[in-house]
């Protein structure tokens, strides 16, 4: 366990989406938040967050920046957290799509599993040891299958909304849109 007093250089993939919110959460916890747009910037960080946004747009931008191979390698060695679209980028299987993106997390994910924006909702639930955490689901995905090495860390009404495989974390909801920093704190405490 890393003590809270240690300052971690935390990257936030800054191609598109809720980048500012993650950087703010990281900074509030006393760590250094660094926007990552290319491989050189990725080399400087010790942990990485893939924010919410549109996964198709992020994939296009990842290809343009030729970042996919470096991210695959990063995920093997360093803690990585994906929220919503970020979780889709990490997943090995995407319902209805022949290919994956980074594909390092042994789960099947269904994009936009609840319907249009009118079906977006918020609730509260546990994330690992964190109780009563606010969960905001915006055109959210769902994990429909998890592999043997994957631990379910969050469920909402019986459905899987948070998983962990070693130091790869993926959440279907948006901790960056709440004031509650406990999920970021827990993720950054592990080493």
């Amino acid at each position, binding site marked *: 366990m890393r003590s809270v007093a240690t300052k971690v250089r935390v990257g936030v993939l*800054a*191609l*598109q*989406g*809720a*980048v*500012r*919110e993650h950087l703010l959460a990281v900074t509030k916890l006393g760590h250094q938040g660094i926007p990552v*747009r290319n491989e050189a910037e990725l080399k400087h960080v010790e942990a990485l967050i893939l924010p*919410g*946004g*549109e996964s*198709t*747009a992020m*994939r*296009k*931008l990842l290809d*343009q920046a030729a970042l996919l191979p470096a991210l695959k390698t990063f995920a093997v060695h360093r803690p990585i957290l994906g929220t*919503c*679209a970020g979780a889709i980028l990490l997943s090995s299987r995407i319902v209805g799509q022949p290919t994956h993106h980074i594909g390092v997390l042994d789960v099947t994910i269904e*994009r*936009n599993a609840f*319907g*249009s*924006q*009118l079906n*977006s*909702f*918020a609730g509260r639930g546990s994330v690992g040891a964190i109780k009563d955490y606010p969960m*905001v689901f*915006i*055109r959210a995905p769902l994990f429909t299958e998890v592999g043997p090495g994957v631990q379910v860390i969050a469920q909402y009404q019986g459905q899987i909304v948070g998983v962990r495989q070693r130091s790869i974390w993926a959440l279907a909801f*948006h901790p960056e*849109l709440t004031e509650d920093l406990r999920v970021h704190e827990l993720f950054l405490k592990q080493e």
Partner: protein
Amino acid sequence: MRTEMNRGLAEMFKGGVIMDVVNAEQAKIAEVAGAVAVMALERVPSDIRKQGGVARMSDPELILGIKQAVSIPVMAKVRIGHFVEAQILEALRVDFIDESEVLTPADEQFHINKHKFSVPFVCGARNLGEALRRIGEGAVMIRTKGEAGTGNVVEAVRHMRTIQAEMRRVQLAPKEELMTIAKELGAPYELLLELAELGRLPVVNFAAGGIATPADAALMMQLGCDGVFVGSGIFKSADPARRAAAIVEATTHCNDPERLAKISQGLGEAMPGLEINRLETAYAERGH
């Protein structure tokens, strides 16, 4: 809670490009090029300008076809003040409604009471007062009005600079001056207080109206916009797929001139542009 979720969806668009499309085929091209959302409409603004007549909400069949074709959020436009068109779009379960000056206004005095809807709204603004009035009515996202269908970015620049100059004034003003500033701008006082505290608009602010090139998109991003709308600029250009992808890349890498130089090469003809002082109708003057 609904407001937070709807503002949240707008936050997810940040750093992205929202593209006007008139059919499912264009929507697919936009999605593949990396659009974060598509705006479904019957005619792009430059055609509305050319052909004239009353521009209205699109045929629901067209909107449903576009919804089927893509996995990204689908937006659609309603006329200013036309709350029944908005009710219809909500019934169609679009992801976002644009109460837009590009369509012919249905009400010359009043905008829609957007608080009555569950679906989120974006509205255009030329200045801070207008932006805060729309937010006061329930908009969860703002865009510059610019001058749609012209391929001329000058009005979008004017609107963004105006909003920012007025925000600077609010942030520097001592609290006792804020009520008078609220009166001068025609802005709700409570929202002005929120803005003074936050140091930015409480919602996402995109650029729109006249963006035609990757450089235009990067310009608006460097001026402080959160993302861009591109209307006629893509599908009225020589090579829409390529230009769309280039504008997406330029929006993300707006601060990297060498990269912008590469992105801007060999895109073919941009849409034909129009000078603002020769326009028959200034769309930006619709709604206030």
